[in-house]
C-alpha cells in the first residue's frame, strides 16, 4: 500500500495492453439487442399464457354476471332486452363452438369474430386492469419496506471501510453521469449486493457489511459499478414490471380464492386498505412490502385456501351447503392455478429470467466501461459466489441481487480438486504440528486427499475457527499457520474462515461471532447435501434469474479479464457426454409430461365450462320455479295425507 490505490480509469492512460476480443461497447450493444429479443419473447409468452387463462376467466366472469343478474331480476325485473341479448349471445356461442369443434353447421366470419371477442375480451380486460392497478399501486409504495425488511442501515462515516464504500458509490455515479444513489448496509452473514428502487431517482444500493471486509477497494468499486450501470440502464423499471406481472398473477389467484379462505380475504383486504390510504412514510412502505410478499406467497401451489375449504374433515351443515353452491368454482380455481403454475414455470418465468439475465450481462459490460477493469469485477463476482449464505428478509427481491442469494456453484465447482484437497490436508498437518498442539490425534492420512478425510478436516477447521472466535489463542495461532501454509489459492480461499470476523469476534462483536457460526452451519449443510430451496421469484421460474457465474466470467474474459482458468470448473468431456445422454433420455419424457399437462389444462377448462353451465342452469331453475305454488302444493299434499290418515283412523 505505497501509493493511493488508483483504479482503472486513472491507469488507462498507461500504454495500451493487448486488445480484448470484444470491447465493452460492443458487448453492451449486443446485450441491448438481446434484451429486445427477450422482451418480444416475453410478450409472446404472455400472449400464449393469456389464451388458456382467458378461456377460464371469461366464462367465469359471464357466469358470475348471469348469477347476479338472476338475483337482481328476482327483486327488480331487468328489461327483457337484456335477457334477449344474453340468450342470443349464448346461442351464438354454442353454434360457433359446434362449428369449430364438431364441424357442424355454418357460421359467418362476422359471427366468428364476435364469438372470439366475447371469449377473449373479458379475460384480457380483467388481466390488464389488474396489472395496471398493480403498477399504480406499487409505484408510490417506494422501497422503504424492502429496506426495512432487510434491516438495512446507513453507513457510518467514521468507519474507514464504510467511508470507502460511500466514496466508491460517489465515484461510480460520477463515472456514469448519474445522481448518486443512496447507500445502505445490511449486517448479515451473507455476501451480496443489490440495487433496489422503483425508478432511477429513488435508487438504493444495498450491500452486505461483510463484503467490505472481503473485497478490496477495486473489487468493491467494480461491484458498485455493476449496480450503478444497472441503475443507469433502467433495470429498476424492468425489475418493477417483471415483479408486477408476477404479482398480478398472484392477485388473480387471490381473487379466485377469496370466497373460500380467510387468508385470501385478508390479503385482499390488505390490498384494498393499502390502496385507499394515501399516507406517506414508513407505514405505507411497510404495507407495500407486505402485500408484495403475500402475493408472491399466493403463487406457491402449496398454500391454497381452496384445498382447506374442500378438504376440511367434518364440515358443518352450512359448510356443506356452501360447498355444493361453490362446487363449480373448484374447477375454475384448479384450472387457473394449474394454468398459471404451468405457464409461469415453463414459459413466462423462464422468458423473464432470460430477459433479466441479459440485463445482468449488460450491467457487467457497463461496469467494465465505468471502471475499465474487468479483472476486478471478475474476482469480486468469484468471491461473492464462494459464499452460499443467504441474506435474511426481502426474499421476493432476490432477483435484484448481483449473484443468486441462494449461492451459485457454477464457478467454484462442486468441491476442491484432489490436488487441492491434498494441499489442504498437508497444510492442516503442518499447522497442527507447528502450533505446538498435542501430538496429532490421527496419523497422517494413508490415502492422501480422500474426500472423507477432507470433509473431516474441514469440519475440524471450522470448529477450530469457532474456538478461535470465542477467544482461544492457541486455535487462532493454529489457523494463522494454516492460512500461511496454504498460501493464496483462489480455489481454496473460500474454505478459510474470515479472519476479519474472527478478530472482531474475539473483541466481543456479537454480529461477527454470528457470522462465523453461520459460515460453519452452512458448511455443515453443504456436507449433508441438503440444498436450500430457492427464494422469491425463483420459485415461479425453473430457470434461475441469475446467469451462471461461469458464463459471466467467460464474457468478462472476452472483454479482457484474465483470471480464472475455466478448465477445472466443468466436468470435462466425460461429464458432457453423461449430460447429453441424460438430456436424450429425459428430454422426450419431459416433453410428454408437458403435453399431458396441456391436456389436463384443456380438460380442466372443459370441466369448468360444464360445471359453470350446470350451475347457471340450477340457479336459473331456482329462480324460475314459482316457489309459492310449489310450497302451496306441498302443504296441500301434507294436509291431504294428514286428512287421509285421520279418516282411516
Amino acid at each position: 500500500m505505497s501509493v493511493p490505490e488508483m483504479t482503472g480509469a486513472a491507469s488507462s492512460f498507461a500504454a495500451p495492453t493487448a486488445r480484448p476480443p470484444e470491447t465493452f461497447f460492443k458487448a453492451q450493444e449486443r446485450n441491448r439487442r438481446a434484451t429486445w429479443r427477450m422482451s418480444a419473447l416475453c410478450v409472446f409468452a404472455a400472449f400464449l399464457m393469456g389464451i388458456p387463462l382467458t378461456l377460464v376467466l371469461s366464462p367465469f366472469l359471464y357466469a358470475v354476471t348471469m348469477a347476479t343478474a338472476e338475483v337482481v331480476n328476482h327483486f327488480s325485473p331487468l328489461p327483457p332486452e337484456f335477457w334477449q341479448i344474453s340468450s342470443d349471445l349464448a346461442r351464438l356461442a354454442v353454434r360457433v363452438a359446434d362449428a369449430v369443434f364438431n364441424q357442424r353447421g355454418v357460421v359467418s366470419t362476422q359471427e366468428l369474430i364476435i364469438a372470439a371477442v366475447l371469449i377473449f375480451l373479458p379475460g384480457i380486460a380483467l388481466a390488464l386492469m389488474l396489472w395496471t392497478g398493480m403498477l399504480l399501486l406499487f409505484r408510490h409504495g417506494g422501497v422503504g419496506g424492502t429496506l426495512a425488511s432487510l434491516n438495512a442501515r446507513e453507513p457510518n462515516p467514521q468507519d474507514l471501510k464504510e467511508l470507502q464504500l460511500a466514496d466508491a458509490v460517489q465515484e461510480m455515479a460520477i463515472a456514469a453521469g448519474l445522481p448518486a444513489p443512496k447507500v445502505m448496509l445490511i449486517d448479515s452473514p451473507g455476501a451480496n449486493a443489490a440495487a433496489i428502487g422503483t425508478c432511477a431517482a429513488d435508487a438504493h444500493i444495498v450491500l452486505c457489511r461483510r463484503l467490505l471486509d472481503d473485497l478490496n477497494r477495486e473489487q468493491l468499486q467494480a461491484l458498485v459499478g455493476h449496480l450503478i450501470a444497472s441503475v443507469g440502464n433502467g433495470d429498476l423499471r424492468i425489475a418493477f414490471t417483471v415483479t408486477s406481472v408476477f404479482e398480478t398473477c398472484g392477485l388473480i389467484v387471490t381473487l379466485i380464492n377469496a370466497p373460500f379462505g380467510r387468508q385470501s380475504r385478508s390479503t385482499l383486504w390488505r390490498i384494498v386498505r393499502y390502496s385507499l390510504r394515501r399516507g406517506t412514510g414508513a407505514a405505507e412502505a411497510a404495507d407495500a412490502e407486505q402485500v408484495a410478499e403475500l402475493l408472491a406467497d399466493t403463487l406457491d401451489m402449496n398454500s391454497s385456501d381452496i384445498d382447506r375449504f374442500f378438504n376440511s374433515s367434518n364440515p358443518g351443515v352450512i359448510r356443506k351447503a356452501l360447498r355444493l353452491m361453490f362446487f363449480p368454482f373448484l374447477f375454475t380455481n384448479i384450472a387457473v392455478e394449474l394454468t398459471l403454475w404451468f405457464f409461469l414455470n415453463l414459459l413466462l418465468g423462464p422468458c423473464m429470467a432470460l430477459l433479466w439475465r441479459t440485463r445482468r450481462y449488460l450491467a457487467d459490460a457497463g461496469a467494465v466501461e465505468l471502471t475499465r477493469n474487468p479483472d476486478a469485477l471478475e474476482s469480486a463476482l468469484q468471491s461473492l459466489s464462494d459464499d452460499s449464505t443467504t441474506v435474511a428478509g426481502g426474499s421476493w427481491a432476490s432477483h435484484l441481487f448481483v449473484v443468486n442469494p441462494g449461492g451459485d456453484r457454477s464457478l467454484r465447482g462442486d468441491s476442491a480438486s484432489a490436488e487441492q484437497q491434498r494441499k489442504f490436508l498437508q497444510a492442516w498437518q503442518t499447522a497442527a504440528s507447528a502450533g505446538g498442539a498435542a501430538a496429532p490425534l490421527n496419523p497422517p492420512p494413508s490415502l492422501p486427499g480422500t474426500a472423507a478425510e477432507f470433509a473431516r478436516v474441514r469440519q475440524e477447521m471450522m470448529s477450530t475457527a469457532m474456538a478461535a472466535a470465542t477467544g482461544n489463542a492457541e486455535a487462532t495461532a493454529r489457523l494463522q499457520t494454516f492460512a500461511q501454509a496454504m498460501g493464496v489459492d483462489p480455489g481454496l480461499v473460500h474454505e478459510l474462515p474470515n479472519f476479519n470476523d474472527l478478530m472482531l469476534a474475539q473483541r466481543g462483536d456479537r454480529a461477527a461471532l454470528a457470522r462465523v457460526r453461520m459460515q460453519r452451519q452452512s458448511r455443515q449443510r453443504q456436507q449433508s447435501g441438503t440444498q436450500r430451496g430457492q427464494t422469491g421469484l425463483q420459485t415461479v421460474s425453473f430457470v434461475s434469474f441469475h446467469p451462471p457465474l461461469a458464463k459471466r466470467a467467460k464474457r468478462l474474459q472476452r472483454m479482457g479479464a484474465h483470471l480464472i482458468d475455466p478448465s477445472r470448473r466443468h466436468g470435462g468431456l466425460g461429464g458432457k457426454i453423461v449430460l447429453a445422454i441424460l438430456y436424450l433420455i429425459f428430454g422426450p419424457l419431459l416433453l410428454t409430461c408437458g403435453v399431458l399437462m396441456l391436456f389436463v389444462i384443456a380438460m380442466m377448462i372443459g370441466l369448468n365450462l360444464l360445471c359453470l353451465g350446470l350451475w347457471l342452469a340450477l340457479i336459473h331453475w331456482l329462480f324460475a320455479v314459482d316457489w309459492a305454488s310449489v310450497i302451496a302444493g306441498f302443504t296441500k299434499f301434507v294436509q291431504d295425507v294428514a286428512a287421509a290418515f285421520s279418516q282411516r283412523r
Partner: protein
Amino acid sequence: MDFSPVLIAIAVFVVLVLWFVLHAYNRLVRMRNNVSNAWSDVDVQLTFRHDLVPNLVESVKGYMSHERQTLEAVAQARSAAMNAGADLATRAAAETALGSAVGNLFLTAERYPDLKASQNFLLLQEQLTTTENRIAFARQHYNETVRQFNALIAEFPWNLIAAQFGYTPEKLFAAGPQDRATVQMAS
C-alpha cells in the same frame, strides 16, 4: 380545390424534412448539454482538489518538515493548475502534474512511521484516493460524452445540421504527448 398527387408528395416530403431537422436539432442540443454537464462535473472535482491540497499539506507538514522541496512542489503545482487558463490541453497537463505531485507527497510520507501510524493518515489517504478517482472518472465521463458528440456531428445527415447551427467538435480533456513528457520530468 383539388390536390394533385405530386403536390401531396412534396408536402409530405417537406413535413418529413422539417420533422427531421427539429429532431436533429433537439438531439444536438441535448448532446451538447450533456457535454457541458460532464465538463462542469470535471470542474467541480478539480476545484475540490485545489481546496483539498492546502489542508493536506497542513496536516502532514508537522511530521515531515525536512521535505520542504516536496511540499513546495505540491504548492507550486497547485497554483499552476489554478492559473492554467481555459485551454483544455494545458489545463490537463497542469492538473496531471498536480496529481503526480500529490502522489509523490504520499510516497514520501510512507517513509515516516509515526505519520503512517496515525489514524488520521488512513482517512487522509482515502480522501486523496477518492479525489483522484473522482477526477479520473469525471474526466472519463467527459471524454466519453465528447467522443459521442464528435462522432455524431461528423456523421452524414447530422453534419449538415450541425454546420448550420454552428456546432463544432469539442476538445477532449487529456494531456497531449508533449505535455505528458514534461509532466514525467517534473515528477
